[in-house]
């Protein structure tokens, strides 16, 4: 697998299929693990980071055939390629910008990624489109079991899996669900929802993780508590909560269709119109406009587009993807012009009904 081979697909998380995919974009379950006999990455010397990386890379290579994993040493990739992996949700921003020997193993189809020397020695995640918490958990659990037969993890009977940050100790598990909530956002229900989620000890983040703004009406909901509850208990609480949110978002969408049909039609078509005709277009504005278009497609207001097609545009207009498609690096003003041109070309043939 070459990195550029990924360029023209969207990967698993934007496939636009799976249960509840009208509201749930994707599901992710990640596990944090550490070797028992090394300092955590932030405290490890350059030499130790190298030892950790080669040990774990070697163990992953033993599994690479059955698991179809390809390994990328991040310290040898360009900034652009690392940013490209961040945009595909295969590595974290922190992992992209860190120093020292580190890497990522990616499964074909991008359903699994395993980061080495992120905040913990190992961060492995399974990704699924739609709401598939159990499937994602089962898969990453199996990989974790196989790895745990080949290395000695830092684990204690009392605290569970030991992690660099006490917020991850115990199961080391963070399960997150990426939701598209345009109707709840439009009707200003989000603040109410955020307050309720906080009370349930669930965290809400934007598309690209900790500290990012929720652009494009995309919200990531994940568990905060990792200790004192089993993996199944954590997954159950998220599943129940997400089902409620999905039902709520659907209700409001139906209400909007019934009571504000012309307003909604106007919004969807204006968004599409802007995407088809603008001469300068930022990445964030693209996300916002595509959110309305995506809603229009799902509600049957636009016949000529599909959700996977909208998702592909969402990804391909992110800065690193755009520059790789264009074939050279661009400053942000050039990016805006190239992005607008790309969107015009991609949407030229869409019929407005």
């Amino acid at each position, binding site marked *: 697998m070459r990195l550029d081979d990924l360029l023209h697909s969207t990967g698993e998380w934007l496939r636009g299929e799976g249960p509840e995919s009208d509201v749930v974009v994707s599901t992710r379950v990640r596990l944090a693990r550490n070797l028992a*006999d090394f300092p955590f990455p932030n*405290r490890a010397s350059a030499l130790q980071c190298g030892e950790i990386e080669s040990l774990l890379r070697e163990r992953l290579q033993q599994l690479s055939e059955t698991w179809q994993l390809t390994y990328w040493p991040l310290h040898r990739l360009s900034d652009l390629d690392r940013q490209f992996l961040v945009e595909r949700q295969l590595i974290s921003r922190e992992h992209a910008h860190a120093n020292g020997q580190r890497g990522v193993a990616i499964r074909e189809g991008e359903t699994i990624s395993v980061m080495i020397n992120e905040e913990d020695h190992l961060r492995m995640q399974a990704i699924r489109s739609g709401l598939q918490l159990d499937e994602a958990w089962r898969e990453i659990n199996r990989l974790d079991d196989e790895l745990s037969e080949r290395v000695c993890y*830092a684990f204690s009977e009392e605290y569970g899996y030991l992690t660099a940050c006490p917020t991850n100790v115990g199961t080391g598990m963070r399960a997150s669900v990426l939701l598209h909530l345009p109707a709840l956002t439009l009707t200003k229900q989000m603040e109410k929802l955020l307050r309720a989620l906080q009370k349930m000890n669930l965290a809400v983040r934007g598309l690209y993780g900790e500290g990012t703004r929720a652009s494009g009406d995309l919200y990531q909901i994940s568990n905060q*508590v990792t200790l004192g509850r089993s993996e199944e208990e954590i997954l159950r609480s998220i599943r129940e909560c997400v089902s409620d949110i999905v039902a709520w978002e659907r209700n409001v969408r139906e209400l909007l269709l019934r009571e504000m049909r012309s307003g909604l039609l106007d919004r969807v078509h204006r968004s599409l119109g802007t995407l088809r005709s603008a001469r300068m277009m930022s990445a964030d504005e693209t996300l916002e406009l595509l959110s309305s278009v995506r809603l229009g497609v799902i509600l049957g207001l636009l016949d000529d587009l599909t959700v996977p097609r909208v998702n592909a545009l969402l990804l391909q207009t992110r800065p690193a993807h755009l520059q790789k498609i264009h074939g050279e690096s661009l400053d942000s003003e050039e990016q805006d012009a190239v992005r607008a041109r790309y969107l015009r070309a991609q949407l030229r043939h869409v019929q407005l009904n």
Partner: protein
Amino acid sequence: MKCFACGKQATVHVTNVEPGGVKKELHLCQACAEKMHLIQKKQIHLPALVHALLGAHLGPAAEELSRLRCPACGISFLEFRQQGRLGCPYDYIAFRKGLYPLLERLHRRVEHRGKAPRRRFLNSEDQRQVIRWRQELIHAVAQEAFEEAARLRDCIRRKDFHL
């Protein structure tokens, strides 16, 4: 609600429930919270928040905790408080006194109920020993004490857990 530090409108509210259920509240405006590094550019800064919460509950035990240092990786409890990141797995034992109340606050129940690794895991004594050797090895190499470095490498190799 007014900012505790400057009296302007407070927009950042930190509530710390101490063991025994005593609530301590801290109200700050955006600017003062940023000054105290509790938040950065409207984002929550987790290490600093952990730091603030820890500092709030420490009280009289502060001095004892400030003297704690991990015998394996060498990080002090204060360094952990500043960075919000632990140095090695043995810190969970070395810093137990300071960590336990924090874990209680973060997770409520401090008792692992999830899965366990299939393979045996290290007892904490071995863990402390090997991480200690690894740190001594860094010093030995830096000081070009090659015989000592070779001895330490042998010790570590004999305990290889990842076979």
